[in-house]
């Protein structure tokens, strides 16, 4: 397109000097940018509104869907008076303890296993098939076996969650180890590092960002397994609370329990991201 045709199309004469100052591609009007956060907040508000409205209009029986207000007042009530012999805080504490004990166990086992897979072919030969075998099995499937072996006590519950966390921790560690730059290892060796020193001073810190990602995935897997682990012979815990409330059709406690689990999972995710930023500030900046 020539200047003249552009000018003529606009219905102006070419000898008007200012025509030439019109840029051929004009800047577009800036679009109103809505942040994802705002959209998310609106979405949540809409869901809440639909929920409240359907409860208010009695579209669904409260046995199936209690109103938000009922759930909130139940939250207050359970927080102060408790539900099935334990306050909400005690239920939360019991669940958190199980998840964190399992996390510690999964790290103590999973990180060395991941190192072995990433560093040595023998290690990979031993652990890779075991992990690939364990990974796709749903926790509910091996729960009965673990109860047969270890009884219905606390260790069984923690073990089930640990097994669910093991694969993500080990596999993330292994992939972090495999990603360590050879030059960095060579530099350490040429500065006099022994094999063990290379693992401790170079490979482990290099793999740390990947390990932390593994922990985040593992926590998610752990929470999903929690309810299953608390199905059997628990007297406390969020999963147990939801389970026993469901048996008596106390739906508002069920909904409240679900929301509490979601809130805690969200808080944990947020915390780990903060820890990541504090512990591995170099990630993505090399």
């Amino acid at each position, binding site marked *: 397109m020539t200047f003249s045709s552009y000018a003529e199309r606009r219905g102006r004469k070419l000898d008007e000097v200012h025509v030439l100052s019109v840029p051929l591609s004009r800047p577009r009007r800036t679009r109103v940018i809505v942040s994802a956060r705002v959209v998310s907040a609106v979405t949540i508000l809409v869901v809440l509104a639909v929920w409240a409205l359907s409860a208010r209009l009695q579209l669904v029986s409260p046995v199936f869907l209690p109103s938000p207000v009922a759930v909130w007042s139940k939250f207050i009530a359970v927080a102060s008076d408790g539900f099935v012999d334990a306050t909400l805080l005690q239920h939360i504490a019991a669940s958190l303890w199980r998840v964190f004990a399992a996390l510690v166990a999964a790290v103590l086992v999973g990180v060395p296993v991941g190192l072995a897979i990433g560093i040595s072919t023998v290690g990979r030969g031993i652990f890779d098939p075991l992990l690939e075998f364990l990974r796709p099995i749903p926790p509910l499937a091996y729960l009965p076996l673990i109860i047969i072996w270890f009884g219905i006590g606390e260790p069984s519950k923690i073990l089930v969650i640990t097994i669910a966390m093991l694969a993500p921790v080990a596999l993330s560690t292994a992939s972090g180890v495999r990603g360590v730059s050879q030059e960095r290892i*060579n530099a350490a060796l*040429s*500065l006099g590092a022994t094999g063990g020193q290379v693992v401790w001073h170079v490979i482990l*810190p290099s793999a740390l960002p990947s390990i932390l990602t593994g922990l985040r995935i593992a926590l998610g897997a752990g929470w999903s397994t929690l309810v299953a682990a608390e199905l059997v012979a628990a007297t406390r815990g969020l999963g147990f609370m939801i389970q026993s409330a469901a048996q008596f059709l106390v739906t508002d406690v069920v909904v409240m329990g679900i929301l509490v689990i979601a809130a805690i999972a969200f808080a944990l995710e947020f915390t780990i991201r903060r820890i990541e930023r504090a512990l591995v500030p*170099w990630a993505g900046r*090399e």
Partner: protein
Amino acid sequence: MPRLVLDQVSVRYDGQTRPAVERASIEVASGDFVVLVGRSGCGKSSLLNVAAGLVTPTGGSVTVDGTPIIAPGADRAVVFQNDALFPWLTARENVAFALRLRGVRPSERERRADALLALVKLEGSGDRRIWELSGGMRQRVGLARALAAEPQFLLLDEPLGALDALTRERMQTTLLDIWKESGVGVLMVTHGIEEALVLGTRIVVLAPGPGRVVRAFETGFSRRYLAGEPLRDIKADSVFAAARGELTDAIFEGEAA
């Protein structure tokens, strides 16, 4: 006086029919500055890795004062093109890495690391994080880290390759100052012809296919710099221009134009 000797060294990597290096002999004594130059594929980095103990030669021998080299060691510290610094450590902690491996006390480590940072003209930057440093500063940290190991030989694998021209020129003088100060023997790989002339006391020219030594020059430009003559004057000298021509010819000798 320690001597690093590569005698008739051949390197053939797994799965490759042609050797990367064939019967190359190189000698570095303390106080030497030996530069390996050549077109790409001539095996100069392979030879440096052999000297470092990171690559085991398939033929010939590598010795330091008659003792065979079978593994990497702090007596032959390497500086790589991509600095290979540890981003989880500060600049000072990077420099002190070799000392930490040996169990040197923290206060002593810090003192010596700071002295080395001053030597590479980075005083006051010890607390900075690696990702905050420019490419040139990172290479200075890399040099100081290698020197902290108190090596007899410094092996430099295109350490200035990734730097811009101005930074590179300043780093060349730093390298010469360090070399003079420490008295180590240096073996350096570069593809900069001028750089080889400015820095080296001996320049070894390699040719590819398979990598082999084709020429060796003794040069005196770096000694002239150490005697106090500015680098710029040396580079402007007609003798320097002649040497550059001769070296360029040697590198491209036998190449189909």
